[in-house]
């Protein structure tokens, strides 16, 4: 009965109700987007870091992995020390660098990753196989396209230039044995991976025994934080970062987006709340005679309150599904804009849909709907019956 009356009241002013629902839907869309932005980016980054099962990362002291061009000295002995620990299942050292591929009329440059192919966690094989010999490499689509080569081809590569001799340095003829997708690199970033020993040899003595990063996979059941602390204590020249620590660093760097999400989410919720409050208050003002009659014939004060609360909640809940659908569309649009950040890994989503985000948005909308009805329902329920009836009768 209460719902029927509330529904009838909303239908009485169709244009007004439709506009309110549309306004709330846009606010709900924005709210969902902002809830997705505030939590999705973090979740997306977390799943990216854990996608290959490496829970710890070692980088040069005071830096984040690949944040600078600094490298770890004596990396081989550090890797050996880590591998000897009982809780460690695998260690993957990685050396970052550049490769230059001279073509007939131009030079193609690419990011190079020196890895141990048997334990690497930087790429996924799409076609072919992992490098098994020193003179083999795997490349991504962007590089293969730029080179005009395919799996099975050979190519001249160099690691640098010697300006004095006016020649390329660290030259090799490498065979492309696989097409891969790099997990932590941008989609359009040209890149190749080759055995770490080959890249070190190409770079020359300054790369001897060095690595940019080492990723550590622990055995199931191992305490990640305890292992991180133990490694940090024993290895003075590196910073050991766990996934939670990396997420904390990412949170700090991208705090702008999180705070923007909180502010815009709050503004969206406030706009929706004000819209519904205004609408229901005006609606109650128009019906004060009707409400007084209801009270006069014995309808309890709480029924009046309930009817008005149901009215405001109904607007919110009817608008919510449309708003959530609209939110998913706008989230894709906004995500496609932010995906153009230079160097952003392909798999990072700023707006990641999670059921919890939808439930959070829906819960906030419902709560906002109930709160929006509080003032008008209090006003409706507290009308002096006799005075209102007399004023309404006199006009």
């Amino acid at each position, binding site marked *: 009965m209460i719902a029927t009356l509330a529904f009838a009241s909303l239908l009485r002013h169709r244009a007004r109700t439709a506009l309110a629902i549309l306004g709330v839907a846009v606010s709900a869309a924005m709210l969902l987007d902002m809830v997705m932005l505030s939590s999705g980016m973090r979740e997306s980054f977390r799943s990216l870091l854990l996608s290959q099962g490496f829970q710890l990362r070692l980088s040069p002291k005071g830096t984040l992995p690949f944040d600078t061009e600094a490298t770890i000295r004596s990396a081989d002995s550090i890797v050996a020390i880590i591998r000897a620990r009982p809780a460690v299942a695998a260690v993957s050292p990685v050396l970052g660098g550049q490769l230059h591929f001279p073509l007939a009329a131009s030079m193609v440059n690419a990011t190079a990753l020196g890895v141990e192919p048997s334990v690497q966690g930087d790429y996924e094989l799409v076609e072919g196989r992992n490098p098994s010999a020193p003179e083999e490499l795997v490349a991504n689509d962007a590089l293969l396209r730029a080179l005009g080569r395919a799996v099975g081809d050979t190519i001249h590569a160099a690691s640098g230039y010697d300006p004095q001799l006016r020649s390329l340095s660290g030259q090799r003829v490498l065979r492309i044995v696989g097409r891969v997708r790099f997990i932590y690199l941008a989609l359009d970033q040209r890149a190749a991976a080759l055995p770490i020993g080959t890249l070190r040899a190409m770079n020359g003595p300054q790369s001897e025994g060095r690595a940019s990063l080492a990723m550590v996979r622990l055995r199931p059941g191992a305490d990640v934080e305890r292992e991180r602390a133990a490694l940090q204590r024993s290895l003075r020249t590196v910073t050991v970062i766990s996934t939670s620590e990396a997420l904390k660093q990412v949170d700090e760097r991208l705090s702008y987006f999180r705070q923007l999400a909180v502010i815009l989410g709050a503004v969206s919720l406030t706009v929706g709340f004000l819209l519904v409050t205004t609408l229901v208050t005006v609606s109650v003002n128009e019906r004060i005679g009707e409400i007084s009659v209801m009270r006069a014939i014995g309808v309890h004060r709480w029924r009046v309150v309930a009817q008005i609360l149901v009215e405001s909640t109904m607007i919110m809940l009817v608008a919510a599904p449309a708003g959530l659908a609209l939110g998913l569309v706008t989230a894709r649009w906004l995500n496609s804009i932010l995906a*153009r950040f230079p160097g952003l890994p392909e798999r990072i989503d700023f707006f990641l849909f999670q059921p919890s985000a939808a439930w959070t948005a829906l819960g906030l909308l419902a709560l906002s709907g109930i709160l929006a009805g509080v003032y008008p329902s209090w006003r409706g329920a507290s009308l002096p019956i006799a005075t209102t009836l007399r004023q309404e009768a006199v006009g």
Partner: protein
Amino acid sequence: MSIRTTLLLICIALRATGAQSPPSRAPRSSAGARTIAIDSRLASDAKLQVGDRVVISSEPGAPGDTVVIAGIVQRSADPAEIARGEYRVRLHLDHLQTLLGYGDRVDRFAIRTRGDGSAPEAVARIDAAAYGFRAHRSADVAVETSRTFAVVSRFHRAIGVITIVASAIFLLCIMLLKVDERRRDVAALRLIGCSARTIVGSVVLEAAVIAVLGSLAGVAVGGAASWIVNQHYQAVYRTPLRFSIVTGDIVVLAVALSLVLGLAAGWLAARRLVRTPPLALFGR
């Protein structure tokens, strides 16, 4: 490793700071040690001041060089640096090259040309003669390094579009309510002979006044919000960069937009009202 990157990684080990030497801008302090400049963020975090002696090395644990802090520099308002938490240390070029065992290598040269027109020619001549490096115009470098901010700017514009849609609906709804409240007044005016045009005009005028007053209040709120945003993020990122700027163009755009939206909303609501017969407006 590049010099620029290594510069960021210079390790500073604090040594007893009892021996204070006077500030110096010369390559060597009066005590004979080389001098460096550090950024204010590092000075604040490590509690360093001008005249302090510190040991710097290119890697943790490596033998270092004792130097004197000769200056503390304020970071430039560079958007590219705000999210990076690194410290900056400035050394004389030869000092850094020696510290790193880098020979006479450098990361880049900056060249000032005579007049704007000579830059392309200089770039072409350098590229023709160079091997292993390339010349770029500063303007091109600026475009490339500001791609991140172009993305952020596009994102802000997209958010702005959504906000404008929401505002337009909100405004239309409010105007509809305001006009609906005056159904009886409008009906009476129509019955005594006021034209629909006059009524629409008065409602639109009212909408315009509301839109202008609202947008002026919005400008005040926006100015205050901008001040809070700058205070907050300048403190968070410890930078003099201004994150939010309210310019005359932005104010004009905001006021014009709200005026147009207000007029459109008022006109739509008034048209709807004058098309209803006066007696129907009276509820008869």
